[in-house]
């Protein structure tokens, strides 16, 4: 299997060259492996961000890889491979969240949550886990993986305006949460 260092290099090349996607679509397993190697870190960051548990993240990533391998022939635009892959991952994460009955309903970051569920550490990451799923998704995609608003809109199948408003709201919520905890007064 391709080493991580090498795969990072290949990954950079692939930003301008989608040949691996083309090859993978044509059934080339090696090309598919290289693509996954390229996006290991992105897969992990997003899954970890949404699911918290490494075990759940591993499950989601595994299902994502298999689904991508099974369906890559249906990917219409090669340059959208990463957004397509992350979209699959988010769907897998949602399935796991749903199965574990762990979904915080939209619009429900409330005072109760603030008082009952403080992160044990002072990191912002801990507070992100307190956000509802909709806000958490955009926050992780935007800040962890540097996706653009447009890309997030494509991944989540929502309007760009919705992405913006969710990001804005996420920052407000985080500011509020951290302010209560006294972690980041500037963010207030």
């Amino acid at each position, binding site marked *: *299997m391709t080493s991580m260092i090498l795969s990072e290099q290949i990954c950079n090349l692939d930003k301008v060259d989608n040949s691996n996607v083309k090859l993978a679509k044509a059934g080339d397993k090696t090309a598919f492996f290289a693509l996954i190697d390229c996006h290991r870190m992105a897969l992990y*960051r997003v899954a970890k961000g949404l699911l918290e548990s490494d075990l759940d993240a591993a499950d989601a990533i595994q299902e994502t890889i298999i689904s991508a391998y*099974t369906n890559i022939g249906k990917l219409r635009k090669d340059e959208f491979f990463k957004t397509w892959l992350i979209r699959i991952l988010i769907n897998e994460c949602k399935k796991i969240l749903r199965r574990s009955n762990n979904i915080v309903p939209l619009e429900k970051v409330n005072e109760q949550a603030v008082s009952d569920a403080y992160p044990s550490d002072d*990191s*912002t990451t801990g507070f992100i886990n307190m956000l509802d*799923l909709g806000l958490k998704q955009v926050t992780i995609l935007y*800040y962890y993986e540097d996706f653009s608003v447009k890309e997030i809109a494509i991944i989540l199948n929502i309007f760009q305006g919705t992405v913006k408003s969710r990001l804005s709201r996420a920052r407000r919520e985080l500011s509020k949460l951290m302010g209560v905890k006294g972690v980041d007064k500037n963010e207030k």
Partner: protein
Amino acid sequence: MKSSFDGDHLKSSLKIPSVIPESINARIDDTLRNLEQKKKNRKLPKKTFMILVACITISSLSALAAFGQNLPILNSLVNFVNPSAAKNYETVKVAITDKKGKTIVNKKITDQGIALTVNDLSYDGATLIVGYNLSKPGGFGNDVTQIDTDLMPRFQSLKDGTPSGRGNQPSTQDSYLSKKDNGDYQGYASINFGDPDTKIRDDYTLSLAASNIGLNGPSGFKEVNGLWKIDTGLTEKDIYTAAQTTESNVVHEFKNGKVDSVKVIRSALSNIISFKGTDNIKQIPNLRLGFFILDDKGNCMNYRSLSMSSDINGDGGFKTGMSLLRIPNDTKKLTVIPYRYIFSKIDSDYEKLYKADLAKLPVSIKIQDQEINISAIERSSGKLIMHFTIIGLADDISYTSFGFEDKKGNKILPNEPWARIISPVDYETHQGTYEFRTDHPEEISKVTVYGHEYELMNDYKFDIEMK
């Protein structure tokens, strides 16, 4: 655009993972190493959450037995056993056995000591049937009871070897291999491309390639990796036997959209309908468009979605492919009813959770014009098996996923990740079984299922004359 949202302070305070834990890397590596096997194991789950170990279990083939002694039985443990497809395939096999529409190939390739022989091909533009066998000098041994492989078709240019876009994107694939007296495995692969909208080319030839062969037996599953590739030298046109195609370019408008063309493909290999059109309210992402297809007796024909594509950055164009139940020969017309529904299981309440009490059977769950009738349940150690039928307007009757609750409404949890085993609803009878493995089958009191209500566009329904 992005700058307006930069929260540098926020970002700097995030503990963004920069190292992938070894356990995650190990899982990814393992997944990649065993991709083919995991892909097969997942086929069932993917379609509905489920699993497969079962298929094998398939309480054994009792359901399959009902389909006849001569089923090219089937499938391996690692391959999704699709009784309905198998049943349909029996018809296919009979239809092509008379050699009409069958092109003899008889080409063989050997790797890793295993020979793959492609015997014959049948193709109607939407479905490709490959007759093939796998053999090994001295046989595969008594330790192997089932064999499976993924034969991937590729249509490539005679001129420069480049693949044709469509030929390499099968939508669904089922395979049927059975052991012969001489120890070889012989059978068929049925590959559907979903989108029947294709030009039959005479400048692209078909090659078939497999990169692994799965061997299953009492001692477990093994995979032999290699490369078995056969260039048939035959073009699409060489192997093509036209299906009966009904095509119409009459525009059918519906609320906020239109269908520009309708194609119905009927052959021994296919019963497919596809639409091309435009959806003018594409900007509402979760508002989905669908079509119910009814025969002239009012029976809903939707069986399984084969493909659906829409251009999210374009003009709202869409294209669908649907597998239908078998269309009776005396059918004069099909009626199409467009509908819309909101699809979002997580972020809204539009997809509802329906429940039924299992205390008294039979019981039914009504989801608008669809009815799921649960006729019986079997409880035994570690599992519950539910028998049901689906009738009425359903957009995809082949698979349905259920959940279970106790008397107090608490979810009954599965006892393993792959604890749901679904047999697809039968092609003809609409009967299905659902197996759920749990440590507490005796506590199961209610069954749940998610469903969406829809807006039926009865005022915009239209007919398709069958020729």
